[in-house]
């Protein structure tokens, strides 16, 4: 690899990949930054003029109610002010996204670890058990949602039947109910993802050295001690990795919401990406959708930085 003269070949080899990444990742990231400062709401009904003017920066009565015109950072000011329409939606959506992530990520990781312990044994039929736990990974999120839509049906849905068996007497329609819809989304996501995360733990468990466990056995360590003191610490990197893909996954896969919370018109269970979709493609509120996208990108970048710092630290140890 002598550098006698300029060799354009590596650049040409990267070019095809780079063109598409520039066009569909880098350019849109900057475009959305600019567009989030433009008010554009082509199908805004005249009668909604009042709520429209709630947006700080859009005061003039003479201005077109549909835009487009430049509003600077008005959307961001509005979003962080809960008394505006945008702020109300923003707080609701961020709260939902946070709750959704905080529940689905740890629960599916915990289940994944438990599953991995159970199927990392040599018992007859264990291959079948792995398939039984992993198969939801191969299902589209929509079909998982259509199946679960039935389970959540009041009166005869199996989920409710099971809950009633255990003495549950609360509200039954997990899809339409404002308080339960978000939990409905969480349950589907956990059911779908636990088996996927399981395989990473399974790979991790299979890579653990046997002699440590033999030594622990000689010391008379119990099953639980071995897991807490040996297995989990040794699989720390695996856990970190799964956490990263779980969080990014929770942000980007909202296909089940299109089925499950479609009938909830008031947005009690809206997740961030779902709200972006709604604002842009259902309500045609372009500017707000772009501003929400900027928030999403910012969150992902912050997350990447935190994750980078964390993994640097665990490398040092």
């Amino acid at each position, binding site marked *: 690899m002598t550098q006698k003269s300029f060799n354009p070949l590596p650049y040409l080899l990267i070019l095809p990949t780079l063109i598409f990444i520039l066009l569909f990742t880098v350019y849109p990231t900057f475009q959305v930054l600019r567009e989030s400062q433009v008010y554009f709401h082509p199908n805004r009904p005249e009668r909604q003029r009042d709520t429209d003017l709630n947006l700080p920066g859009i005061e003039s009565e003479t201005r077109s109610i549909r835009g487009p015109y430049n509003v600077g950072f008005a959307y961001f000011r509005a979003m962080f002010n809960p008394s505006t329409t945008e702020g109300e939606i923003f707080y609701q959506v961020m709260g939902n996204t946070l709750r959704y992530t905080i529940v689905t990520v740890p629960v599916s990781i915990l289940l994944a670890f438990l599953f991995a312990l159970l199927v990392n044994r040599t018992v007859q039929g264990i291959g079948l058990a792995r398939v039984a736990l992993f198969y939801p990974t191969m299902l589209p999120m929509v079909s998982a949602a*259509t*199946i679960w839509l039935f389970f959540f049906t009041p009166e005869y849905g199996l989920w409710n039947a099971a809950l009633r068996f255990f003495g549950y007497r609360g509200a039954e329609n997990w899809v339409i109910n404002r308080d339960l819809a978000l939990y409905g989304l969480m349950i589907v996501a956990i059911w779908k993802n636990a088996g996927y995360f399981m395989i990473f733990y399974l790979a991790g468990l299979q890579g653990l050295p046997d002699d440590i466990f033999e030594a622990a056995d000689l010391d008379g360590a119990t099953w639980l001690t071995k897991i807490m003191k040996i297995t989990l610490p040794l699989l720390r990197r695996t856990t970190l990795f799964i956490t990263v893909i779980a969080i990014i996954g929770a942000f980007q896969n909202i296909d089940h919401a299109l089925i499950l919370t479609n009938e909830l018109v008031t947005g009690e269970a809206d997740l961030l990406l779902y709200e972006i979709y709604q604002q842009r493609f259902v309500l045609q509120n372009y500017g707000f959708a772009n501003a929400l996208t900027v928030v999403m*990108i910012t969150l992902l970048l912050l997350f990447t930085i935190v994750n980078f710092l964390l993994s640097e630290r665990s490398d040092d140890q």
Partner: protein
Amino acid sequence: MTSNFIPQKSRHWGTIGANIATGLICLLWVIPIVWAIVVSFRPPQDSLGHNDVWFSDRLTLESYQTAIDLAPFFPTIEDGKISDSYYANTIQYVVLTLAVQLMTMPLAAFAFAHYEFFGKRVLFYLVLTQLMIPTVILLVPNFRTIRVLGLYDTTLAIAMPYFGSAFGTFLLRQAFLEVPRDMVDSGLMDGCRWYHLLRYVYLPPSRATLVAFGLVSVSFHWNSLLWPLVVTSDKSRPLTMGLLRFTQLTDIGARWSLVTAATIIIIFPLMLIFLIFQKQFIRSFMHSGLK
């Protein structure tokens, strides 16, 4: 597989307990799919009721027939032309995506693994931005790009944002870096051109990575909904959108057998391939998690 029976009482009971737990959890996890399959064989007009959510008095394929009649899952021939169908659309964009990825990825991975050049790190990070910001997040600006390019409602529109894959490039670069330096050097001594090196030195030992990426890519795109939903309107709709539309078209409450039949229709091929090559699939998905 034989069970490693250890004649030690506590160990023995532990194993039994673990087996029961495994069995119960697996049962819980397969109930949804088993239920869907069972119900899809009920007659379409036979609605589910209290204590009647599994078998009907007869099993029939009528629900499948009705589902196929209601929505264009499969191509039909009209006036000598093959009509657009969900299946054909999904297969088209899944194959198109993978085919292009299999061309762009090895080239970029080869450049990053084999050459030293000015700006290599910056370019690599630029590619990796796609890992940080998943493409689907950018659906609002990307939709505009697709519109500007005049690609709305085409297979190409669904596939194009995924033509360059940071994930695949990264994975393949890792595989290329594992190729022993001696092999590369002897290739260079023999006067290999770069494409010979790529074809005969780098790619053969990286087959497993390519297969893993292929399986992950195919199942990801086969299953995706949000992006296709945004960039297609009619003729290019894939299977997942067919299912979404199907649930909106029919009065679901009364027609579960139709919805489950439609669900089985769209998941069947991928599930079948998964069940046949399950070990390969699980290994590939594991592999896809390499850091």
